[in-house]
């Protein structure tokens, strides 16, 4: 069941992005930025946590989950550290993704030659 929900949810997010891309002048850069903000907004009152529980991996792969992880780490740290925890825990959960993206893109851009 989680597989089917994952398919539907991730497909729905991509469909939304495609509809915005086709029917407005926004570029993919605008849309990904917008979706990160939406993901952070949905986790303000734990809606995205509920979606992840119902959907599984399909909710963790779209860029909305990046915004969710940012705010989730910040709030988890603010539990123990108070107000400053919002700043301390911001990258707690997304550190893996950002670090991996930086390292892989740097190493691969050094190794491989650009095509054109």
């Amino acid at each position, binding site marked *: 069941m*989680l*597989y089917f929900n*994952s*398919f539907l*949810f*991730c*497909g*729905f*997010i*991509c*469909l939304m*992005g*495609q*509809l915005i891309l*086709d*029917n407005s002048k926004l570029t*993919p*850069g605008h*849309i*990904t*930025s917008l979706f*990160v*903000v939406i993901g*952070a*907004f949905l986790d303000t*009152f734990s809606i995205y946590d509920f979606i992840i529980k119902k959907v599984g*991996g*399909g*909710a*963790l*792969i*779209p*860029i909305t989950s*990046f*915004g969710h992880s*940012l*705010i*989730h780490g*910040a*709030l*988890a740290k*603010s*539990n123990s550290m108070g*107000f400053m925890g*919002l700043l301390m825990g*911001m990258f707690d959960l997304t550190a*893996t*993704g*950002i670090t*991996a*993206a*930086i390292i*892989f*893109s*740097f190493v*691969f*851009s050094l190794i*491989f030659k*650009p*095509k054109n």
Partner: protein
Amino acid sequence: MFHISNGDSMKDLRYERIASNHKASENKGKNGIVAFVSGGILGALAEGLINFYSSIFDISRNDATSIMIVTFIFIASLFTALGFFDKLVNRFKCGLLIPITGFAHAMTSSAMDYKKEGLVYGIGMNIFKLAGSVILYGVVAAWFFGMIRYFIGGAL
């Protein structure tokens, strides 16, 4: 003078007509279905990878999620560097741009594009050219909404 501007506007009109013809032939409904199916397959694949990693390495679901994301970033980075991820993006569009693969694709492609300008001025300064806005607005939004949650709804 008059002739030149007249010719220009004729050219503009003809250009616009040709451009609108091409726009009409681009099928929006088909694009949407392609994005839905390809994005959905990626989502189901993500769920499968989480189950696979958590059973084979005997780790929690959260740790398996991190490894799943690293896997997708690795594949997207490698395919972008090899040069054929752009063709896949042209075909599947948002189906590949909205998942985390789009983030890795943006970083690797901007690093590759500016590689010839050197390590510091090329790769170093331009690697976050496209992905930087995602991080910036993500952090600002997360901080802003986190403040709201912290003061109104209490912490987690």
